């Protein structure tokens, strides 16, 4: 397997639970203990109710494409072989939005509202990245 050449995110204390869960093939999202709002990425306090109390909870991994773009310029050499590639915003069933990529879908086939579910890709010993795959029909 060729070496992984794209940027690898730093596992910061705030995001450690997220990356630890991803290693276990689980998607977790921070949820406010004050009002129940799901938020991504992690923040120190809730902008809805200003509570500082939060917990990481496992979510279904189901969602839909909320928006997407197609990157045509090479901003990092790790993506040089991939342009044009799509970046998506996935709106999870629980409401939080995540920036990510789709796997197995060509940029020209991406549609807003397309149902997707999380898949995981190990990119280093420490980091596993959640990406998303299209759900071809309900229940699959």
């Amino acid at each position: 397997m060729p070496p992984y050449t794209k940027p690898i995110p730093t596992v910061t204390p705030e995001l450690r639970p997220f990356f630890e869960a991803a290693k276990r093939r689980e998607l977790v999202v921070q949820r406010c203990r004050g009002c129940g709002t799901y938020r991504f990425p992690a923040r120190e306090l809730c902008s809805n109710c200003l509570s500082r109390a939060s917990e990481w909870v496992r979510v279904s991994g189901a969602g839909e494409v909320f928006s997407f773009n197609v990157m045509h310029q090479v901003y990092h050499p790790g993506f040089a072989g991939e342009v044009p590639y799509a970046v998506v915003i996935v709106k999870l069933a629980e409401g939080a939005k995540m920036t990510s990529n789709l796997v197995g879908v060509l940029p020209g086939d991406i549609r807003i509202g397309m149902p997707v579910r999380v898949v995981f890709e190990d990119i280093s010993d420490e980091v596993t990245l959640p990406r998303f795959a299209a759900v071809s029909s309900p229940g699959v």
Partner: protein
Amino acid sequence: MIPYTAIAGLGITQQGKVYDRNHVGFAVEAVQLALADAGLDRGDLDGLLLNPGLSWGEAAMGSFQLQQAMGLRNLRLSATMNAGGATAAAMIQHAGGAIAAGMCTTVACVFSDAPLKPPKPQGAEKGGGGSAGAYGFARGLDAAYGQFGINAMYAMVARRHMHVYGTSNDHFGAVAVAQRQWANRNPAAQLHETPLTLEDYHRSRWVVEPFHLLDCCLVSNGGVAVIVTSAERARDLKRPPVYVRGMGQGHPGGDPAETLTSGAVLAKETALRMAGLTLADVDVVELYDCYTFTVIVCLEDYGFCKKGEGGPFVADGKTAPGGALPVNTGGGQLSSFYMWGMTPISEAVIQLRGDGAARQVPDARVALVSGNGGILSTHSTLILSGER
């Protein structure tokens, strides 16, 4: 209401691929030009507000640097301001407030930048892109997924607008074409001599879909300054005053991809109420066009058309030369030059003074000027008029 402040001087340096001066030099020259335009000299300045561009550095004490460079003594007002793309108009608003409060009398509001470097010879390292700042978003997660820079984030919002309202690349292209037609009438525009058709627009390379290169504003080296003073004093100066009749800001917060709405909704309400005017009184519109898409959203949010109908409104030719609503009459930041909000302000001053020559809008008495920043998250509005 009786206006209490006015723009009394305008200074615009050379714009674009001007490599022999740096950002401080451009700022000083812009202030000198604005002072000369007003018939003042630097000793008359007791206020200085600066919106530093990228070249000034992230933690720059910019207004202090500029003060030192200009040898200004005993300023009664000095600050470096940042409200994103809303800053330029916000500087004029803060200057006006300070003058009305009696803190100072004569304020230079300045923007300058020099991010363009001379082209390197063939084979040299390709510059641009992937700045370290891009990695700060979401602790590097955006970079891990290949999302870099502001274009990419704005593209997400534009795509939602297309999905929800049926806005298309033809609509975006119509903005680019209309503004180029204005630029073709403006000898000072960087793209003055470059005509543009909708076909040319569609052929221009993709930067990040749904944005072609021609959806994105220019990059420019240069500086712009305006002198703000009281309405009374402005009447005694060299050029006809451009009165600040109304001013407002709007900073909505929230997720712009969800709301698809800018701060113009809030900002225009304050500004029009202060001016005692309605949209029907507006003769020229100068919008902050960081993207073609932004023009469409702002036309909707100001209420020149219904929400979601900005695209068809522009495609109908309404904003182009000869149209019912002249918009970005110098070519805007897409086709003339990119001075972070000083572009629309300077064009409004030119139009209201009747200095527009080939691009002059007949009987231009009231101009609506706006600044938009962040991802539709900061906004400022000025209602300017040559008449009290």
